[in-house]
């Protein structure tokens, strides 16, 4: 697996992109996280988050110009969240506000910070916490002089002092009454400072910078320093500058000042490390986030008013306002997919996890089940704003694991055995229509419909022969979907090649598939074969004259996931129902938004629990009887008690028209396929086929049949065990019950059967299996 490709896929998932408020904030305060803590009534935790981004929380919470609020998605749904007021509430109600500033090992590097406005204070703070020695120069008598002029009502002096106490608790050297500038009467020239220090930050506010003309390039007005806006570099390599001096005299943006101080420090560090000043800074400052947040269905809610505006929000008011937060995030795919929801994360993390799982050389692969549980149904891609295919990635990792020989052998073993049966002698056949030497069409009913409803396959094939000119041949077999889904590329290629060979031998006719999965496999992987769905064909050529009037007047259509984007098929299914006189109610998630039935991607074999959740969720989407046009969908829904018709149930009628019937078990499915082939050959081609009577008659109670299904033990496995035991005498008897016990291992699985010999056959009491081999020492 290509690393870069994996990374690209990871980056396609936007769930970890910041919400609009954070992206709009020059220093990217995690407002969402902070508000979430307030919602949980934990003001101290909220304060801790706020303080992690904002070095002077008391000051900023009072005077921030909060560009975040303009971008809030609540804006049109009752008004933007009052983020700044909530920040103030954090400060006011947090019980833990001890200065949390820490500083790392002291470096010998000395940095001068000139000016104690917000940008200078931030630069000093950030530099000290990173371990630099800082000297802070201030022309006035106290720090933060400008802030102190804002007035007691807006910003009480006490709050300024409290915030500065945090800074002063750190090892910073403050030189008050020290103006830095080239004029003789004020003492210290910038040149002298540049000389003495390793780097300099200038946060000189809106003051005239003409005094720096010797050292720095000034703008045309001769009053302002030329500052590179991304890196805060000046014309002197050691000098960086920012704050209101940079962004303008007309407006004071406290949060932009903080931003300038913070990112100037980044440049100073890069300068000292001789690294590129400008590299990787594209998400510095406010930017447009890629995060998508679905606001559909979110009810408008008005801003919580303040009872006493001068005092800000009360705790209750703040919590109420926090509850309005949408908590922006994407999770579009997770919301619609039980599989993605089951593992409690999202694709970006899953992709990383699966890649790490793949990379493990020695030791346990913890994410195999995650890899194998996806239905590969494509719904995630359909709903993803970035069209990320989580399913596609799961499939790629399965293929890579198979290639490495690290795919757990048992997960797909049963499904692949089923495939082997369906591509074997007992089921496959390819013939021209009886009495024809060539075929214009070929009907490919697929293995699962043939297993579920062999009679309907027989009937509809006859209808196709009667209503289509030019010969409709028949091909029984498997399209190879289980091989593809299990990551067995080679086996899939072989299976498909065998189908294509037969198809070519029949003269490369137009293929008509009854199964949506076959349709998909052929469309995507067998480009040479022209494929059409049985449903569009029937829509065109008409229904059999015997098409039964519907026994149910209203159905809800469950579209097949493998043809979620094939509008023509979906349209034809609806037409056909119209012709049958059946009323249709559409499920909310229909057509391209349909879900899997739990069979896709072989998910049910890898993770029956998740497959069960998928079915349970789907069958509760609608009240009416369901109508499917995929045999597996029908059987899976019916197995969980949802009345479901297959479209052929309504077209062909007969005993299979019962929407409540359970589908056949695994053993019966094999038998149905084999019998369908015999019946076709006997009844349509007039061949003398005799169904071989089973040499070993089994007596199986419904309870035992259920155990067989659960443990995936087939009647043919039981027969092998009994045949072996009876032929060799290798069996044991339980002296208490008189029952016999025997085992046999045809290939990779040892089957155990507990049985009694009866006059009419062998009565089966229990079956189980294991894959481990057991031998005497």
């Amino acid at each position, binding site marked *: 697996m290509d690393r870069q490709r994996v990374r690209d896929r990871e980056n396609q998932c936007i769930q970890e992109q910041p919400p609009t408020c954070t992206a709009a904030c020059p220093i990217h305060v995690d407002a969402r996280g902070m508000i979430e803590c307030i919602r949980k009534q934990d003001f101290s935790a909220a304060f801790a988050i706020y303080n992690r981004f904002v070095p002077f929380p008391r000051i900023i919470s009072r005077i921030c110009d909060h560009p975040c609020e303009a971008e809030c998605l609540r804006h049109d749904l009752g008004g933007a969240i009052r983020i700044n007021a909530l920040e103030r509430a954090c400060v006011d109600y947090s019980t833990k506000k001890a200065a949390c500033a820490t500083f790392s090992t002291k470096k010998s590097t000395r940095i001068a910070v000139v000016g104690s406005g917000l940008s200078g204070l931030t630069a000093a703070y950030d530099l000290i916490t990173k371990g630099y020695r800082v000297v802070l120069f201030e022309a006035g008598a106290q720090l933060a002089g400008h802030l102190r002029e804002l007035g007691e009502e807006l910003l009480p002096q006490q709050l300024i002092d409290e915030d500065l106490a945090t800074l002063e608790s750190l090892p910073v050297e403050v030189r008050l009454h020290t103006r830095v500038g080239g004029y003789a009467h004020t003492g210290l020239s910038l040149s002298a400072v540049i000389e003495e220090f390793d780097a300099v930050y200038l946060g000189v506010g809106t003051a005239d910078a003409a005094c720096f003309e010797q050292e720095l390039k000034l703008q045309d007005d001769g009053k302002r320093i030329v500052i590179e806006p991304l890196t805060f570099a000046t014309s002197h390599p050691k000098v960086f500058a920012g704050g209101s001096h940079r962004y303008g005299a007309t407006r004071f943006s406290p949060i932009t000042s903080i931003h300038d101080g913070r990112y100037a420090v980044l440049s100073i560090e890069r300068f000292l490390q001789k690294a590129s000043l400008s590299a990787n800074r594209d998400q510095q400052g406010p930017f447009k986030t890629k995060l998508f947040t679905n606001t559909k269905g979110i009810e408008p809610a008005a801003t919580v008013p303040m009872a006493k505006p001068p005092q800000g929000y009360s705790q209750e008011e703040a919590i109420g306002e926090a509850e309005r937060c949408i908590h922006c995030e994407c999770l579009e795919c997770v919301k619609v997919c039980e599989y993605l929801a089951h593992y409690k994360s999202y694709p970006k993390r899953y992709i990383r996890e699966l890649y790490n799982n793949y990379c493990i050389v020695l*030791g*346990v*692969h*913890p994410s*195999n089940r995650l890899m194998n549980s996806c239905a590969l149904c494509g719904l995630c891609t359909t709903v993803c704003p970035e069209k990320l295919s989580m399913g596609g990635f799961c499939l790629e990792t399965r293929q890579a694991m198979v290639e490495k020989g690290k795919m*757990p*052998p*048992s*997960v797909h073993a049963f499904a692949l055995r089923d495939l082997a049966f369906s591509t074997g002698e007992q089921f496959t056949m390819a013939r021209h229509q009886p009495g024809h030497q060539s075929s214009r069409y070929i009907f490919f009913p697929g293995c699962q419909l043939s297993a579920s409803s062999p009679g309907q396959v027989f009937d509809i094939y006859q209808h196709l022969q009667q209503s289509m000119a030019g010969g409709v041949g028949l091909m029984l077999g498997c399209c190879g979907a289980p091989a593809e889904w299990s990551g067995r590329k080679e086996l899939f290629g072989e299976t498909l090649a065998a189908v294509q060979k037969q198809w070519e031998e029949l003269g490369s006719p137009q293929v008509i598939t009854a199964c949506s999965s076959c349709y998909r496999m052929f469309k995507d992987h067998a480009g040479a074969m022209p494929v059409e769905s049985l449903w569009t064909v029937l829509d065109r050529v008409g229904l059999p004259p015997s098409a039964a009037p519907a026994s149910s007047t209203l159905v809800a259509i469950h579209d097949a996931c493998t043809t979620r984007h094939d509008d023509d098929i979906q349209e034809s299914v609806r037409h056909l129902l119209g012709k049958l006189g059946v009323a249709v109610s559409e499920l909310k998630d229909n057509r391209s938004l349909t879900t899997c039935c739990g069979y896709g991607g072989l998910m049910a074999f890898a993770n029956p629990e998740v497959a069960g959740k998928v079915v349970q969720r789907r069958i509760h989407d609608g009240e009416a009887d369901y109508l499917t046009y995929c045999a597996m969908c029908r059987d899976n829904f019916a197995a969980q008690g949802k009345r479901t018709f297959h479209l052929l149930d309504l077209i062909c009628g007969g005993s299979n028209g019962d929407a409540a019937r359970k589908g056949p078990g695994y053993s019966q499915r094999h038998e149905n396929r084999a019998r369908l082939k015999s019946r076709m050959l006997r009844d349509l081609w007039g061949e003398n086929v005799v169904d071989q009577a089973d040499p070993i008659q089994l007596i199986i109670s419904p309870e035992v049949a259920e155990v067989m299904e659960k*443990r995936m033990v087939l009647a043919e496995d039981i027969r092998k065990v009994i045949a072996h035991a009876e032929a*060799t*005498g*290798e*069996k*044991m*008897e*339980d*002296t*208490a*019950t008189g029952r*016999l*016990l025997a*085992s046999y291992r045809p290939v990779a699985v*040892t089957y*155990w059967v507990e049985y009694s010999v009866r006059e009419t056959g062998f009565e089966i009491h*229990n079956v*189980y*299996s*294991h*894959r*481990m*081999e*057991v*031998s*005497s*020492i």
Partner: protein
Amino acid sequence: MTEKEKAPGTPNLVCKKCQQELVMGKVTVSYLGAKFPIELLKCPSCGLIYVPESLATGKMEQVEQSLEDK
């Protein structure tokens, strides 16, 4: 090996071929290259081994799964 060493609930099994009662004995179970010695009921004469259902669907299945994830 005596009766007493059998776990409670272990059936009394007789090998049909040898007409001997199965007794606890050393066997090897192996999967995907890993081998474990354990004790199971087996025929003292022909070595026919009994794997109880609880073992096959319990511990054995767990070990199989964890070996498959290696």
